[in-house]
């Protein structure tokens, strides 16, 4: 089974491509979504198809190859192969039909319809297409007709809370609000000032603590970034690239002496240890 295949390019120069076989099963129907790529500026140039007709010599068979019009009724492309009486079974048709660059959006589902006592065998249909990357000029600033996007800042009605007579009254407290303060004794005023000063210090401490926390967090983040950078620079490839040859690794050191004498110092030390051990054993019977 041939799968549709296509090429794609990011260049601004128009490029060309060819699909794979659109007919992938015996239903002789296909969806263009499964056949064509989806760049916006795609236009189909040519339809190329071939098949082998199966029929009796005396029969007439009509074969219609086409694509529906996706934006209306009827067909955007339709070929009629009229196999008249006298045309032989097993004859192959190989047809190239230029369609003159029709945009991809107009191409609906495709089909091969056989009318009459016959069938088609080994159908193969491909499309050749052209893609203009600048079909939408906004695709790239280098495309002709490109317009820099305009940033529209939405306009809002700014609400001035201090304007207006009704609100003004709320934010311009009248003198009655301060009547209580004026009626306070000196001690009360002093206590109130102390409390306010205490509250002010607490707020200042909280603010400084928050600032310290932010600085510590930033410092930790900075150190983490430095470590990440160092790790990226470390080149481990030389370690990964090493390999050890397979096979057998045999002992390469050989002892040439035929006789290995005992170590006399070791013998003496061993006897001394044995004597000490015996003394310790004997101690328990004393």
């Amino acid at each position, binding site marked *: 089974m041939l799968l549709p295949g296509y090429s794609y390019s990011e260049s601004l120069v128009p490029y060309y491509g060819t699909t794979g076989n659109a007919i992938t099963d015996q239903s002789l129907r296909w969806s263009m979504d499964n056949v064509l790529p989806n760049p916006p500026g795609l236009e189909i140039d040519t339809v190329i198809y*071939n098949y082998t*007709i199966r029929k009796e*010599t005396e029969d007439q068979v009509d*074969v219609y190859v086409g694509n529906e019009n996706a934006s209306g009724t009827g067909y955007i492309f339709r070929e*009629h*192969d*009229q*196999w*008249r009486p*006298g*045309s*032989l079974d097993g*004859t*192959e*048709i*190989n*047809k*190239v039909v230029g369609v003159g660059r029709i945009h991809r959006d107009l191409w609906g589902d495709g089909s091969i319809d056989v009318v009459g006592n016959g069938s088609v065998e080994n159908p193969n249909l491909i499309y050749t297409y052209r893609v203009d990357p600048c079909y939408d000029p906004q695709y790239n600033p280098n495309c002709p007709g490109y317009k820099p996007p305009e940033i529209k800042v939405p306009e809002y009605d700014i609400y001035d809370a201090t304007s207006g007579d009704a609100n003004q009254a709320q934010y311009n407290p009248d003198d009655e609000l301060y009547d209580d303060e004026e009626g306070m004794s000196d001690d009360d005023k002093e206590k109130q000032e102390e409390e306010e000063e205490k509250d002010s210090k607490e707020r200042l401490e909280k603010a400084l603590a928050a600032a310290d926390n932010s600085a510590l967090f930033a410092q930790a983040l900075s150190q983490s970034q430095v470590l990440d950078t160092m790790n990226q620079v470390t080149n481990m490839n030389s370690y990964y690239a090493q390999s050890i040859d397979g096979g057998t690794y045999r002992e390469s050191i050989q002892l040439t002496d035929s006789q290995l004498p005992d170590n006399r110092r070791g013998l003496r030390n061993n006897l001394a240890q044995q004597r000490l051990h015996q003394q310790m054993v004997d101690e328990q019977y004393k």
Partner: protein
Amino acid sequence: MFKKSALLVGMMFVPFATSAAEVPITGTVESRCIIQTDSAGTFGNPNAYTLTTKPADGGEPAIVRYDITLADSYYAEITPPTAFSSAPALPDVVTWVGSVEVSTVSDATGMGTYETDKVELGDTDRYDMTATGSTWFKISSTATMGGEKAFAGGTYTAVAEAVCIAK
């Protein structure tokens, strides 16, 4: 007007001289019938005394394509091989059997009946090319050595002839 004036001046100044010039007129005519070999054939050797293009016997028919751009103006005449163009020494007479048939068309309506309408002129098959487009013909050939004698070892080449004849 210009031709007349020039002729008068010439008569006045060279009254007794004669001159002649040969003016070439050239033109190029491109053939509306083009023959292309799509694939050369191959002989298979199913037994010692037979060479054949049958695929079942290891051979491959030759495919020739006619591209016609002017309808109803040409005949295609194709003759399968009747002799080897090069071969080792032949021990006996070779019998040739060949055939030509339409294998592929580019226009079913106009070319679908080419095969049934063909005319056989001896070893040659004549097709009336009534439609524009491309037609592929398949040329098959079988050579049999007389007396069932074996073909000698070597390379054998035979040539089919395809021509386009204007009506």
